[in-house]
């Protein structure tokens, strides 16, 4: 087990041993080890690399470093800049898991149920990868290739995630069969971007990778009152929105739920996310009533 103290040292160690497993919070990796699904010969920790910690603003972007934990996502001012990410973080595991688990780990694991992933999809985030040879930036939709598969190359690490910090309404809803500590049966992230005047929807746990819902997004965009910053839709239009979101899902039957329920629930959540969406005013406050 190596514990590099700088990014350069980390990249050099990774280049020297491309078969080593990286470990951040260990909340996915150690589960794999305990279940005997992985038995790493060598492990390199990213947890003490200062360049991978915390987050910062850069222009109209927020840079989330790979070792940013869920607990950190839930704290102000980050939770005010990216409320959907904070809401998603709040649904992850228990306090212990939220103190240890990281956004980089969630991305690298690329589980269909990874809770930050639909948020990052709706935000159209960019994943910044780095190796001893240099770096590259990949849209999150290209980074996650399929179930638990990413485009991370040997010798590469996730350095950070870039997300827009524009004026936007954000919502995250997750369905699980208990009130906490639960893997998503489905989830929905909504971002209504006031500058681009676009609504984006990220759907989680209803496909091999986090999905977008283009037709539902189009409808939602047209139904949002961008001047007042609130949704304006009839019951019928809301029902249609739910239907379009459901249609975008590609769910499966498994022991956690059925495809039928997931398809239904993701529509309900998309509709509810939209109904709740409120643009903040210039000071960042959200209007409460339409």
């Amino acid at each position: 087990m190596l514990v590099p103290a700088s990014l350069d040292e980390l990249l050099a160690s990774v280049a020297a041993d491309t078969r080593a497993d990286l470990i951040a919070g260990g909340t996915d990796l150690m589960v794999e080890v305990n279940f005997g699904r992985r038995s790493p010969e060598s492990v390199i920790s990213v947890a003490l690399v200062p360049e991978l910690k915390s987050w910062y603003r850069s222009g109209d972007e927020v840079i989330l470093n790979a070792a940013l934990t869920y607990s950190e996502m839930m704290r102000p001012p980050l939770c005010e800049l990216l409320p959907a990410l904070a809401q998603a973080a709040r649904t992850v595991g228990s306090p212990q898991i939220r103190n240890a688990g990281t956004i980089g780990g969630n991305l690298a694991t690329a589980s269909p149920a990874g809770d930050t992933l639909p948020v990052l999809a709706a935000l159209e985030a960019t994943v910044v990868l780095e190796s001893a040879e240099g770096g590259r930036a990949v849209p999150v939709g290209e980074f996650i290739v399929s179930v638990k598969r990413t485009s991370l190359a040997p010798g590469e690490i996730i350095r950070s995630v870039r997300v827009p910090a524009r004026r936007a309404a954000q919502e995250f809803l997750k369905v699980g069969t208990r009130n906490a500590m639960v893997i998503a049966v489905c989830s929905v992230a909504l971002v209504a971007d006031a500058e681009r005047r676009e609504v984006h929807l990220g759907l989680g746990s209803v496909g091999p990778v986090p999905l977008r819902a283009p037709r539902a997004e189009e409808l939602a965009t047209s139904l949002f009152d961008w001047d007042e910053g609130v949704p304006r839709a009839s019951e019928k239009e809301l029902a249609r929105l739910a239907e379009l979101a459901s249609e975008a899902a590609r769910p499966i039957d498994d022991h956690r739920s059925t495809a039928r329920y997931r398809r239904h629930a993701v529509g309900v959540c998309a509709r509810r996310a939209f109904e709740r969406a409120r643009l903040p005013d210039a000071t960042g406050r959200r209007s409460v009533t339409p």
Partner: protein
Amino acid sequence: MTLAPGTTSTRSAPAGTAAPSAPSTLDRPGMTGAIGSSRRRPDGVPKVRGEFAFSSDLFAEGALWGQVLRSPHPAARILGIDSTRARDLAGVHTVLLAADVPGSPTYGLDRKDQPVFASDVVRYTGEPVAAVAADHPEIARRAAALVEVRYAPLEPLVDPAKALEPATPPVHPDGNVFRHISLVHGDVGTEAPVAVEGSYEVGMQDQAFMGPESGLAIPDGAGGVDLYVSTQWLHVDQEQVAACLGLEPTEVRLHLSGVGGAFGAREDVSLQVHICLLALATGRPVKIVYSREESFFGHVHRHPARMWYRHSADRDGRLVKVEARILLDGGAYASSSTAVLSNAACFAAGPYKVPNAHVEADVVRTNNPPCGAMRGFGAVQVCHAYEAQMDRLAAELGMDPVDLRLRNALASGDELITGQVIKGTAPVAEVIRACAAAPMPMPDRQGALGEDGGRNGVGIGEESEEMALPGGAGRSADARRVRRGVGLAVGFKNLMYSEGFDDSAAAACRLERGVVTITSAAAEVGQGLVTLLQQIATEVLGIEKVVVAPADTGIGSAGSTSASRQSWMTGGAVEIACRRVRNRVLEIVAARHGLVAGLLELSGGKVVAFDGSLAEDLETALGDEVVEETVTYCHAKTMPLDGNGQGDAHVSFAFAAHRAVVDVDLDLGLVKVVEIATAQDVGRVLNPLQVVGQLEGGIAQGLGLAVMEEIVLEDGLVKNPSFTDYLIPTALDMPVVRISSLIEEPEPGAPFGAKGVGEPPTISSTAAIAAAVRAATGLPLTRVPIRPEHIALGGD
């Protein structure tokens, strides 16, 4: 004791409900203040601080680690096993197969039908095939994986209904039906003007105790072995282990180690035989600790049930007849299936006066995981069905469901459908009335939130309002689509073992230099027996210094820590042993002082004379003299059910009622249990805090079965053997528990009149929650656990 109405006992009461009362307010002094007070349990603080030594913490110098290899198939023929590669791995000390079992190749609680290791066929996923001992747990795991077993998979029998068909080939030479009970009571030809019919299902629940199976076996160098293990019943383990090892029971000494919960899952042998075989084969101490995943395969589960019912009543709601067909899936081996079925049949009609009954009940063998004891033991499954039926009947009659229950409530002196007359207490109407009278939780959440159904501007944190809605942290609920429902259910079961299985409990009380030592083989599994035994000794002897010695097989059997029986049985033995010690002490002291023993009393650690003429410290009074008494306690005799399912099969009964208040998101089908109110027949409260603990814990398990806990099977494979996917309630799922009343009608024959309190909380809590969800949704919801899709997609 009747607590003030509205006494809530649990955590985080939402705004508007009564604040949790401090446990001390539940205290009520008894004779000496020992019985009836919330004495602290000695293991409480160490457990909270992580300092309690569980069996998984055991250590022995030079111990090896054991690992069991299990079948990946629900049904397969074993064509051959080659353990060469496993043996050759460095650090491996032995690999054992069926041929290495020197004694009985099989074991079992009731029938010895379960192989120590499978040799010709495997009958369920997870059945042990081989065991390895190695220097390190990881080496042991790798070695187990290197044992090459060639299987020819067979078509598994996974449908219990198919197991009943005569044409279905037997899964085991003993056949596919463990037991059939045909219970006929009264005139089953009687008809009544009103009848309701329904079919119900219960899924397979796991006991999900916190401490996975673990133990340490130490060979004694003379061919015998000492086994330190978590179990519910040392002697029944001893008997089975010794038989399999080919040793005398005296050569296999069992010692109870720190038990991390049991709930029935530790009644059967799990690792006991394997670990002793490994220790004897290597001559070294061997330790085994199951992982959580292995634990799911290593113990029995609650029987899944399919039930059909018809209730017939006259127009004013008096039950005339109950007909039921009950089918339990026993899985691959017998375990305690026959006794579970007996309970299901005996209690099939609920705590009601039912003059005519016809119950056909079967428990069958399949290639599903073996099922056996779990808290509630057969009474839980039928309660789900008969209470749903009572609600249906109430609806059909246009009657209030509480009134219907009261009209039919059993009372002392009434006859059960087994023909047994209840001689003890049966305050059924009392528990129903008290439970129904509990104040409703406030506020009603509906409409409590913003117009948009969301919570804009609400911060991210535990305290936010949304945590109280269905879905909790997921923020998925829309308050406008949340409906509240209320349901009430009543249940009961037997205390102690039944049907002629009249086991006894031995205990010793020793008084030496002012200190009392209580010895028994009774298993403290977390329920608080040690505290109770101390309280009983203090109550009888007036001595505060009471030590409960570690439980082992050095004394006679205490019987099992199950069937809500230990407070009564070992409690009874301890009470009598202490009384005998007391009498002897008084005689000794009386003789020394030329007094009459009848005029002396033990109080505050002293021998005192009635008239104040003597007040002597026990240490002074007795000096070196040791007074010891050993007692074997027996309960009233019971008898097996006859061919019509009739007979005085049970010793005593305990009753409880639960009222559930739930909020349901109609579109997503998510359920938040807001509050459970309960009233329970306890005979007498021995330790109020421990009673509350049993009520809360039992309700948590009942809630789990109602809305989330199920072992999901697909073709005999377990799909969710982990706490990631086998969901048990978290603190955020646990509702406020409002103990409306603990009904104290002392049970004749029971020590201090106390009834066991462990099981009733799980019996009707599930049924009450299911009823509340039905009330909120208007859906039939005949299966538990109720899953979100059953609600959101309309019905079952």
